[in-house]
């Protein structure tokens, strides 16, 4: 672990040491940041880099919120930061934000891009395995599990998705074990081997043999499970049919009854088919292997691509040894790559670019810094939040972004973070924070997910404990019971076709719904046979996200959640996808490129309805103040997160129509002629129409807000 000087204090000072340790901890962090400052200073001197001036408080706060909380600060947050006179307020803010709910939300987006997380993913979609994988990743983030540990758990994952969510790593690439390996090297070793799957790599030193030898470690990992159950049942039938003549056996197997029974059994086993199983399956060279160092279809000996030793202690499976080799601090790339990725996250560009294409001749723009960061990552035990805490304290982070944009070839010496557009998630989350209160707290229904995990475990336990005889009996029962439903479904299909031919829209949607219900019933039959009539079948087959109504956000649209809480990735056409959210087909596939649909969205998008709704935090703040200058102030602080200059206030005032500058109506005294029993109602009516009038008066300010949203300053992070 890092420096822990308090260990040297005598025991009787321990109570003091607990608080002392916090302070020292922040001192230690400060010291680490200073060390990095020094390296940068040397580099700036060496390369004669002109160090820009610092940005002002407001821009710094905006930067910190966007990078750590994943969204712009709220009006309260920015006003309180600006009013804060403390010298250490920046460090305080960093400490406050790291580890917060907002931090987790934004780290999830980072992990999702890296691991290509999908709510509806390739393997195990029937049982919503994607949701379980997503849940597992979120749990690790909340627990602040160190990066190396997480990598190890992903690579060595085994079991069912509810026992061990990490198996999502293999389910994600179900059926593509060779591609899975090149994803591993890209993500954790920053090394692109994918070309070498089919031939020696044209640009890099990897041969096809290298590829296969590396892939051998994990080739045995099957993205399916339940094989043991299947063979149990197979053996049972073989025993049963012992003694039957070949002809009779064949007759039995090919009968309709037998086919129906087989289908039944498969249906019962379905929830238990998905997961990761470590088998001894051996990898062989492809049939068209063209090089001299091996014969096509011959077995491959596992061998890692770097020289650090792959140590196998007794009891270690091949996969575990491989995992340990991957995360070993001696591994020439593992630590450097994650350190570089974190640096990129904070400064907008890596010391090494691209971040996932390291070669033998790769050089960091500041080699001494990369070396230092590598040591630092080991020192903090791969704790990413601690590492980031240090990075955000680096002085260069407070400097004004340069007005040039270095391309991939030019080295950059980090005199400041680079100007970047907000990511899709940052923009969306910023809009969300302006549209609903407490946006960091509005989350998916975790209880429902936990219930799902429990139900799966129950199902697994039950199925595995059943005797084969009993299992087959249940299957037979299920077959009979579902026969009716099958007939029902066929009949509905027929009716549906008739309705489609007659173009009877109402019938079509009704029949579709009924068909879906029948399908669910079919699944229910089997699950309930095994688990009993009260079993919550839906938990086994639900694929979407679970949301629960919460009074805190009563009346707000159910679409307005932070990006990490929505279906991931979002559907094409969704705001997030239009602004470049990764489609998660490839690692790190997000982009911040401009497009016409983006401009159209910012100009005419439907989310303005939520923003300009009278209950949104933006509108509430706006209606709290009366004078035009105060309202302009509110808009600038809420949207651009700074106070307007006098020039800007004038420009905005010029824009507002004379109407907006009229005084806002106030409540009058209730006239005496109103009878006593009608006063309360009268008062209520007055208040209502006043609120409407105030709201209508504020409509001029909507246009102002619209202008602000359509500035470059809004969508770019200075």
């Amino acid at each position, binding site marked *: 672990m890092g420096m822990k000087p308090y260990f040297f204090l005598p025991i009787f000072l321990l109570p003091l040491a607990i608080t002392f340790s916090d302070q020292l901890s922040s001192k230690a962090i400060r010291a680490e940041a200073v060390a990095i400052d020094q390296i940068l200073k040397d580099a700036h001197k060496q390369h004669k880099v002109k160090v820009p001036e610092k940005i002002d408080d407001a821009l710094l706060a905006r930067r910190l919120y966007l990078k750590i909380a994943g969204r712009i600060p709220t009006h309260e947050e920015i006003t309180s930061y600006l009013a804060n006179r403390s010298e250490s307020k920046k460090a305080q803010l960093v400490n406050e934000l790291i580890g917060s709910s907002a931090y987790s939300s934004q780290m999830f987006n980072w992990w999702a891009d890296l691991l290509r997380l999908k709510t509806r993913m390739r393997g195990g979609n029937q049982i919503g395995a994607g949701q379980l994988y997503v849940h597992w990743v979120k749990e690790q983030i909340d627990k602040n599990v160190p990066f190396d540990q997480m990598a190890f758990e992903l690579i060595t994952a085994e079991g069912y998705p509810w026992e061990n969510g990490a198996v999502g790593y293999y389910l994600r690439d179900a059926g593509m074990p060779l591609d899975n390996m090149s994803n591993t090297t890209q993500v954790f070793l920053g090394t692109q081997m994918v070309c070498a799957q089919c031939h020696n790599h044209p640009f890099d030193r990897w041969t096809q043999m290298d590829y296969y030898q590396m892939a051998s470690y994990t080739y045995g990992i099957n993205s399916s499970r339940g094989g043991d159950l299947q063979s149990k049942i197979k053996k049972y039938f073989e025993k049963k049919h012992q003694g039957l003549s070949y002809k009779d056996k064949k007759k039995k197997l090919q009968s309709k009854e037998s086919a129906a029974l087989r289908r039944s059994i498969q249906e019962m086993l379905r929830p238990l088919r998905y997961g990761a199983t470590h088998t001894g399956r051996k990898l062989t060279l492809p049939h068209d292997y063209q090089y001299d160092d091996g014969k096509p279809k011959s077995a491959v000996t596992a061998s890692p691509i770097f020289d650090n030793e792959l140590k196998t202690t007794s009891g270690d499976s091949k996969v575990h040894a491989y995992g340990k080799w991957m995360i070993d601090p001696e591994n020439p790339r593992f630590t450097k790559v994650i350190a570089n990725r974190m640096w990129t996250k904070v400064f907008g560009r890596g010391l090494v670019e691209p971040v996932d294409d390291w070669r033998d001749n790769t050089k960091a723009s500041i080699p001494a810094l990369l070396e230092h960061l590598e040591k630092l990552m080991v020192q903090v035990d791969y704790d990413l939040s601690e590492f980031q805490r240090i990075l955000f304290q680096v002085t260069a982070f407070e400097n004004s972004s340069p007005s040039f944009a270095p391309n991939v070839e030019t080295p950059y010496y980090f005199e400041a973070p680079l100007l970047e557009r907000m990511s899709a998630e940052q923009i969306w989350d910023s809009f969300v924070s302006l549209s609903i209160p407490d946006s960091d707290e509005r989350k998916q229904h975790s209880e429902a997910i936990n219930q799902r995990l429990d139900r799966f475990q129950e199902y697994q336990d039950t199925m595995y404990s059943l005797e084969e005889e009993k299992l087959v009996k249940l299957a037979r029962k299920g077959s009979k019971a579902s026969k009716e439903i099958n007939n029902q479904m066929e009949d509905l299909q027929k009716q549906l*076709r008739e309705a489609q031919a007659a173009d009877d829209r109402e019938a079509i949607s009704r029949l579709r719904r009924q068909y879906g219900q029948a399908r669910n019933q079919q699944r229910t039959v089997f699950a309930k046979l095994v688990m009993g009539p009260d079993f919550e079948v839906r938990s086994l087959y639900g694929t979407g996200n679970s949301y629960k109504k919460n009074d805190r956000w009563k009346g707000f649209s159910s679409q307005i959640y932070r990006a990490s809480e929505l279906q991931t990735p979002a559907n094409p056409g969704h705001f997030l996808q239009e602004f470049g959210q990764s489609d998660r087909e490839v690692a790190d596939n997000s982009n911040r490129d401009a497009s016409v649909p983006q401009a159209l969205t910012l100009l005419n998008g439907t989310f303005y309805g939520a923003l300009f709704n009278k209950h949104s935090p933006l509108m509430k703040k706006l209606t709290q103040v009366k004078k035009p200058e105060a309202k302009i102030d509110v808009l600038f602080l809420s949207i651009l997160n700074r106070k307007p200059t006098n020039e800007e206030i004038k420009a905005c005032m010029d824009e507002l129509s004379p109407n907006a500058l009229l005084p806002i109506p106030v409540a009058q005294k209730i006239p005496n002629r109103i009878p006593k029993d009608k006063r309360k109602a009268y008062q209520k009516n007055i208040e209502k129409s006043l609120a409407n009038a105030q709201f209508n008066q504020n409509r001029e300010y909507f246009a102002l807000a619209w202008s602000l949203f359509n500035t470059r300053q809004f969508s770019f992070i200075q």
Partner: protein
Amino acid sequence: MNHSSKLFSDELNRRRFVSLAAKSFLGVSILPWASHTHLNGAGLGLNRPLNHAPKAKNVIYLYMSGGMTHLDTFDPKPGTETGGPTTAIKTNADGIQLAENLPLLANHAEKIAIVRGMTSTKGAHQQGNYFMHTSYAQRATIVHPSMGAWMTRLDGRFNPTLPGAVVVGGGSQHPLSGFLPTSHQPLAVGNPNEGLKNCRMLWGMTEEKFESGLNLSQKLDRKFTEKYNLDHVNAYSNMYEDAVRLMKSKDLKAFDLKEESESTRESYGEDNFGQGVLLARRLVERQVRFVEVQLGGWDTHQNNFSRVPERCAILDQALSALLNDLSKRGLLEETLVVLATEFGRTPNINVNEGRDHYPKAFSCMLAGGGIKGGQVWGATDLEGREVSEQRVEIPDFNATIAYALGLPLDEIIYSPTRRPFTLTDKGQPLTQLI
């Protein structure tokens, strides 16, 4: 049509003609727009006979998703066990028969070329769909661009205010622009009846307010844009200009199907596919170069013989209306109509009266764009199991489309990860179809 854009497109055509003519007469290639692209590596296809001036300028790509049965549509086998109850009908082209499910199309057979020898090794939906759209096998490590994006990348847009490519009714798996920059992103339209999203000003906004509001944005941004005169910042200003132009463009009306007469709309069929095809025609008229319209529901593992006729009814109506419409408007020569699917279906009929996936042999269709109509290319055996004549791999089919458009097949584009790709991998075009 915009006068300047017509000149622009004529100019491009002229240059293209000159360069291709030079290729064939002098054996030298002159590709005037090649300077900004990476042209090295695998040669320039000088062995290919380039004795045609490409007529096709636009593509309407009709994608039948789910794996359209070939035996009940374009390659009927009446009287055989595998043909099932589907009978064949004569068409207005000598010697060509279609399945009874496509009666309207039979009247346009003289315009179409049926490719019956399609073959593939990808029998799963995702992989087959991807392969057909990109000519590359799906990988977990990169996304290849679909043809619409390739087209605007290699040959540019003709209409400056409308997108270069549009996909109607495609699912979330559509590769769209893949690794190409987002400026080549095909526009995805979900429901053709709804038109383009976010094209109308906010309620209560007036044109005056819109303009003055944007002016205010620019004014407030002045210091910022002066300091940060960077590509990725200026790209936004460009997009805003494009967006405003699009909002004001009368070409936007292309997305408004209400402009068409009731009878026209009816002739295409009042379903999303039919209306999508109508939208495609409107877009192509306004120089959108590639429009894909998808029709699903072809995955007939059950009840093939009741579901396919229903699908065919939709397809038949829309496709026939399109061919009719295009030829009446004189657009058929310059518009290549493609009908494709990811694989065919099994000749053996399964226990559910259905057909399962069958990539070994299937059919696709081409029409217009300089394609010789009234022909059949390739054939399958008596039962429709194997390709007996003229095997066509998917990249070859896509290469044929590119060839008809005059797109460079050998031009290498590098992905951001420096991997080289060409439009159709190593596909060889079927030049005989043209």
